[in-house]
């Protein structure tokens, strides 16, 4: 029953007027950017990081977390109504969701997406609460060798689960690790790769890198592609799904929740992979798989539940081990650091109100999201009609203000432009930027732990294999690589990512 008392402590911390308000702001913003194509949670959270300096830490985290899972709700709205994924995790929702909209059943699709997401979010919140304590305890046994091995496992998993070419994903991670090393070396005080630029002595700012790679690069790419929208909201229909809809979708929601919860914990996983996997699974299990793509409600229910569950459980590695499993969580590390909180197992014991408060807020946020999405759907539909040519200058303004307000440095904004161009180049060369961001965050941590582990072991590199926990983690990483080389798995992976 310790769990209950901890959860009630969390609710007590999260249910203050201010924190509910920040939660509402977060999920509303999340829905907003989820609905709008061309701006994702990474860029939004990066933009808002500076604005959270003045907030109490719990309020800041509640708001930023709300943006992430709120975006999963909003993403489905534009997928269903406009056949345009507002978020990359909603790509598969387009297939059947938009087909349903064409049949005049947009309302049912939106309804089941929101209710399925709510169910998945509630379950995932509970999973976090249950799993967090044992995992954090395990993490306390970790020394530098274990941390290094854990990060290796994390990065390998991020590669395996990323879409696109594996080998290029590995290269992107290394590039990210290298980028993370720019700045003053903590051990020797030597400035590395700073080219004598004082702004670089602390390294590239997190906001600078992420805003450039994800914000500006995407705007340039969207402008190049031009605008193609297939709006279909003339008849939304009843929001509440029919009894038949419920009968058809409760099992997919359950399966999607399970799959999403598991995949979300894995590094590199999170919302995107979860939704793809859930869709593929439903299609496999269906008696008549030809209905998929033509408005099968299972094809909306399962991925929407999965992406929300995945978004939520991806907080587990961050909160218990201090290791961010995806780009959004990497930003959350940044947010916690701003407030002087070092993410890791000690957060739970030292700042229980923060830890449990954040978890409790996720449930509150999910409840708010159902309210926001079902009755207020009309507002989001209207928003979808704002053309991109009016939207992107506003997004650019937010990017500029976000970067500039960190250090009042024009040079950092110029760096952001540089990363934007780099990001655009990556899109052209078919290289995923997400692994780079992960490497960027983990770079300094990894070097630090590698150095410490080898110093303690007197330069004996076998330390990573002789300590059982560390060995286990490395074996896990090796297994992942081996599995991937198996031709069958490789095929399935390719199929799974080609569903769109």
């Amino acid at each position, binding site marked *: 029953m310790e769990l209950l008392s901890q959860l009630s402590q969390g609710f007590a911390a999260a249910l203050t007027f201010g924190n509910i308000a920040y939660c509402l702001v977060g999920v509303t913003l999340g829905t907003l950017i989820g609905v709008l194509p061309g701006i994702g949670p990474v860029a939004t959270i990066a933009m808002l990081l500076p604005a959270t300096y003045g907030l109490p830490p719990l309020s800041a985290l509640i708001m930023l977390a709300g943006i992430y899972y709120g975006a999963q709700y909003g993403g489905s709205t534009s997928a269903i109504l406009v056949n345009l994924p507002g978020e990359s995790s909603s790509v598969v929702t387009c297939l059947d969701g938009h087909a349903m909209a064409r049949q005049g059943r947009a309302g049912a699709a939106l309804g089941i997406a929101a209710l399925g997401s709510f169910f998945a979010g509630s379950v995932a919140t509970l999973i976090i609460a249950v799993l967090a304590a044992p995992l954090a305890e395990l993490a306390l046994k970790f020394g530098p060798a274990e941390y290094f091995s854990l990060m290796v496992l994390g990065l390998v998993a991020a590669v395996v689960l990323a879409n696109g*070419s594996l080998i*290029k994903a590995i290269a992107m991670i*290394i590039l990210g690790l290298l980028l993370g090393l720019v700045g003053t070396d903590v051990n020797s005080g030597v400035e590395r790769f700073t080219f004598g630029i004082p702004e670089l002595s602390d390294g590239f700012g997190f906001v600078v890198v992420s805003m450039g790679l994800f914000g500006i690069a995407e705007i*340039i790419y969207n*402008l190049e592609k031009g605008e193609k929208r297939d709006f279909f909201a003339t008849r939304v229909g009843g929001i509440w799904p029919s009894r038949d809809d419920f009968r058809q979708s409760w099992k997919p929601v359950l399966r999607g929740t399970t799959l999403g919860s598991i995949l979300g914990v894995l590094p590199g996983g999170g919302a995107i992979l979860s939704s793809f996997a859930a869709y593929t699974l439903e299609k496999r299990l269906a008696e008549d798989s030809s209905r998929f793509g033509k408005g099968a409600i299972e094809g909306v229910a399962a991925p929407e539940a999965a992406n929300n569950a995945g978004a939520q459980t991806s907080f587990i590695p961050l909160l218990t081990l201090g290791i961010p499993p995806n780009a959004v969580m990497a930003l959350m590390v940044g947010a916690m650091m701003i407030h002087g909180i070092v993410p890791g197992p000690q957060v739970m014991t030292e700042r229980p109100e923060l830890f449990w408060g954040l978890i409790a807020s996720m449930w509150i946020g999910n409840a708010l999201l159902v309210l926001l999405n079902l009755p207020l759907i009309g507002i989001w539909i209207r928003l979808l009609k704002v053309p991109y040519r009016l939207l992107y200058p506003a997004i650019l*303004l937010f990017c500029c203000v976000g970067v*500039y307000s960190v250090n009042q440095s024009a040079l950092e904004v110029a760096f952001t432009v540089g990363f934007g161009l780099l990001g655009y180049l990556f899109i052209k*060369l078919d290289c995923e930027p997400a692994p780079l961001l992960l490497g960027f965050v983990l770079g300094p941590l990894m070097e630090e732990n590698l150095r410490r582990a080898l110093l303690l072991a007197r330069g004996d590199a076998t330390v990573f294999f002789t300590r059982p926990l560390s060995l286990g983690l490395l074996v896990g990483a090796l297994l992942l690589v081996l599995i991937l080389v198996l031709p069958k798995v490789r095929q399935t992976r390719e199929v799974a990512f080609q569903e769109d």
Partner: protein
Amino acid sequence: MHIRIISRQDFLAGLFFTLLGALVAAGSFKYAMGTAMRMGPGYFPLTLAALLVAIGLFVLTHALTLDRANAQAVEPFALRPITLVAAGVLIFAFTVQSFGLIVATIGLVTVSGVAYQGFRWSELAILGATLSVFAVGVFSYGLSLPFQALPV
């Protein structure tokens, strides 16, 4: 023998990784290497850079020799959005300090707005005015971020 470049995308990506890795490796030699037990600041970067070169070369040769059905050409670069978006942001960056948020916002919106094929000047003027009022209200006053509204 005639070597064909099957995937231009991968070829360029490989080239990019290789060159960058080589540059970083060359740069790392400026810093002390140390030993595995007491690593100097150059140790870790050099290791990573060597890995990057190796992967880059692998991607590069793979693109040259492997016969693949889905040969990917690199799409042409869209110069108009690249230059105008970059220019707009830079204008903001270098005007906001001395000319204030209003001027910087209007500059950003006007220049980057032209990046859209089929933009309208009238629309951009309205958008610039609206956004600058919004920016001053929200950022300077609402969030009290350090932005001057007017030139100083």
